[in-house]
């Protein structure tokens, strides 16, 4: 029982970063741009999340607003990188896949270099800690699983309905969907395709940066250059997995994190288990398996994904 509760609690906690990043990536993809550089943006965000509180007080406890500033710093660095990516793939129309890989290396590279020159080696920070919500956390089992987390975790889950509302109900969301599916049609109605795509990239970048800062400030409470360890790429995959719908993306994020947590906990609880590589592999196999068997028409997805827009070019 304890094992189960631990796994579920950690699932809720650890899924937050993945969830925020993949919701952000959904905005990118809905507008027709897939940003493989998500990993790099997250890494940069994670570094900002370290840098700001650390330069204020090192490993000492810092006032809450400094940590908040760390999160905002991550978010801001994400916006900058998102817009930079836009410059490359929207304005210069570079192939998105290649540019995305470049952005990933750039983000990880810059963060790693700055980390070495400003901070030096592994240092920990106090970060933002989890707290128990009064009363609710007292509920047996459920209380522990759902109500003993960091405030950012709740914000991550609140983002799901919010993102859903924004993409399906607001004028901006409608325009994002239109430019990602038939940019020519959007253009013919006077919508500035490239501006909307820049805005979507800024949004997606902000969320990826925030997710990264969350990892350092709330989860690891330290930074190193491979802190993201593939979450950015998983986020891209989850968007496909979730067919560009926030609720299904959330489901994917939970499923993946659950498998991930389960396997690490098994390794902890059963240290004698020899084939741990097999366990490491498990979450990824699971995602691939679900992707393979979930057959659904792509009629509802952004069909102009990956294609730069040029008004005067046919095809």
């Amino acid at each position, binding site marked *: 029982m304890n094992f189960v509760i631990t796994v579920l609690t950690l699932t809720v906690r650890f899924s937050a970063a993945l969830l925020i990043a993949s919701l952000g990536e959904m905005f990118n993809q809905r507008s027709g741009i897939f940003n493989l550089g998500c990993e790099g943006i997250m890494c940069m965000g994670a570094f900002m999340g370290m840098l700001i509180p650390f330069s204020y007080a090192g490993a000492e406890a810092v006032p809450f607003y400094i940590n908040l500033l760390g999160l905002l710093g991550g978010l801001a660095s994400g916006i900058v990188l998102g817009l930079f990516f836009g410059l490359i793939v929207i304005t210069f129309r570079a192939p998105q896949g290649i540019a995305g890989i470049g952005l990933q290396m750039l983000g990880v590279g810059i963060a790693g270099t700055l980390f070495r020159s400003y901070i030096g080696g592994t240092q920990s920070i106090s970060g933002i800690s989890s707290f128990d919500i009064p009363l609710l956390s007292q509920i047996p089992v459920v209380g522990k699983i759902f109500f003993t987390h960091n405030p950012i975790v709740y914000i991550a889950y609140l983002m799901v309905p919010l993102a859903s509302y924004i993409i399906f109900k607001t*004028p901006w969301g*409608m325009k994002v969907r239109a430019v990602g599916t038939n940019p020519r049609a959007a253009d*013919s109605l*006077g919508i500035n395709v490239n501006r909307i795509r820049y805005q979507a990239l800024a949004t997606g970048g902000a969320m990826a940066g925030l997710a990264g800062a969350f990892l350092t400030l709330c989860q690891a409470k330290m930074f190193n250059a491979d802190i993201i360890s593939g979450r950015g790429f998983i986020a891209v995959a989850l968007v496909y997995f979730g067919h560009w719908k926030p609720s299904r993306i959330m489901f994917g994020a939970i499923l993946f994190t659950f498998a991930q947590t389960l396997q690490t906990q098994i390794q902890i609880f059963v240290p004698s288990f020899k084939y741990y590589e097999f366990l490491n592999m498990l979450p990824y196999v699971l995602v691939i398996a679900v992707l393979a068997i979930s057959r659904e028409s792509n*009629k509802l*997805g*952004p*069909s102009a994904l990956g294609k730069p827009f040029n*008004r005067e070019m*046919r095809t």
Partner: protein
Amino acid sequence: MQNEKDQITNLRLEHITKRFPGVLACDDISLEIGKSEVLALVGENGAGKTTLMNIIMGLYQPDSGSIFINGQEVHLKTPNDAFDCGIGMVHQQYMLVPNMTVLENIALGMKDCWKTAKVDLKLVRDRIKEVSEKYGLAVDPDAFIWQLSVGEQQRVELVKTLCLGARFLILDEPTSALTPQETDELIVLLKRMSEELSIIFISHKLQEVAALSNKVAILRHGAVVFQGNTAEHSTSDIAALMTGHEVKLPENTEPPCQGEDALVIKDLCVKSDRGFMALDHLSLSVRNGEILGIAGVSGNGQRELAESITGLRRTSGGTITAFGDEIQNHTPNHIIRHGIGYIPEERNTEGIVPSMSIKENIILKDSSQSRFCSHTFLKQKYIAQYAENLRQRFDIRCPGINTAAGSLSGGNIQKVILAREIDRKPRFLVCVYPIRGLDLGAAEFIHKKLLELRKSGVGVLLISEELDELMNLSDRIAVIFKGQIQKTLDRKDATRRSLGILMAGVKDEKQL
């Protein structure tokens, strides 16, 4: 910028020139449209009609020339500028987002329904209702675009333009995918609307031009070669001016054909995309050297029939026999090798690969045949020669055979497909709406080619909604209705009236 309420009493284009790489699409065009006028713009495929209209909409920037509205020069940099002046356009290639509803598609253009936190869909719904009622155009606001037939999409496109409050309408081939009845209704509607607004109307069907417009301008190779009042010229005059020679659509006058059966379909059952039975125990046969026309309102199983013959759709019962062999549920490749050619309805997605060159598209079906390929290498020189030859024979208007096929004008894309399919010398040809969007000269040419094929002993299944086309070419005409052949008529018995009645689902005229 114009005041919202201002009527456009005069739109004048002066010396508009527009070049694309390798093509002069508009060559020093000057035109003028006055109050409540309907200007018909006609011309061959690739003459530059769509390009000129896109310039008026601010989608393309002219290389030189100017546009005046009510005597004032305007600079139309984006479609928004054109909307602000009150210009609206129904595009030849529908400008709709398939994964959104009709409502949302229209909301995309209606800036007054964009509230900060929410799209005011109620406002849009009311506007659609108002427009549908005023003009008698019914659309289902909650349907997704991908669920609609091509004809319905055309209607949505029209309603959209009207909802956005256009006071000057540009219609680029608005009738190409409508049924004859819908076309007639639209013409009546446009006539009524022309009392309060000016219209530019593009069409290849000269009866429509004659019925609707009061002025006509003919474009050829990007230049205006003729302008005049419609009433003073007969349609055949206009056709002659347009193509440079007198157009006479060829007719099949040969006696009924006695050849052997080429294609026999027995009790064919096929499901549609939406899951219902699109073909319900359909049977028909076509002989060698015979053209069998399939008449019917689109959506009665034509698409499924063509796709199941060509192996693109699984059948759920019955047999399709071609030259003695059953071919149902075989791979498209097998069926192509069996000698069956196909001219599909969706030319951009099924007929060509838009990003590949004309040359490559022409050899697409035979790239591994020894004609074009030796030891796994393509015979580039021979292929280029061959493609060049087809380009000239089929009069494909393009900068060269290495241009991407997708950059051609709609009619010229069709010619690429026809050139490939006809010159491959099929034993049997399935032909779906072959002249949709083609200019008269091209239609005449294609019809000649089809009759030549027939003469050389090839059987042709011709699916079309144009009764004239069917009656001109077919030896027999089968009328399809709800997935079944209603009745098959010999050419001599087929009249517009008898076909129309059968197409409406009435089997026996006495029932009327």
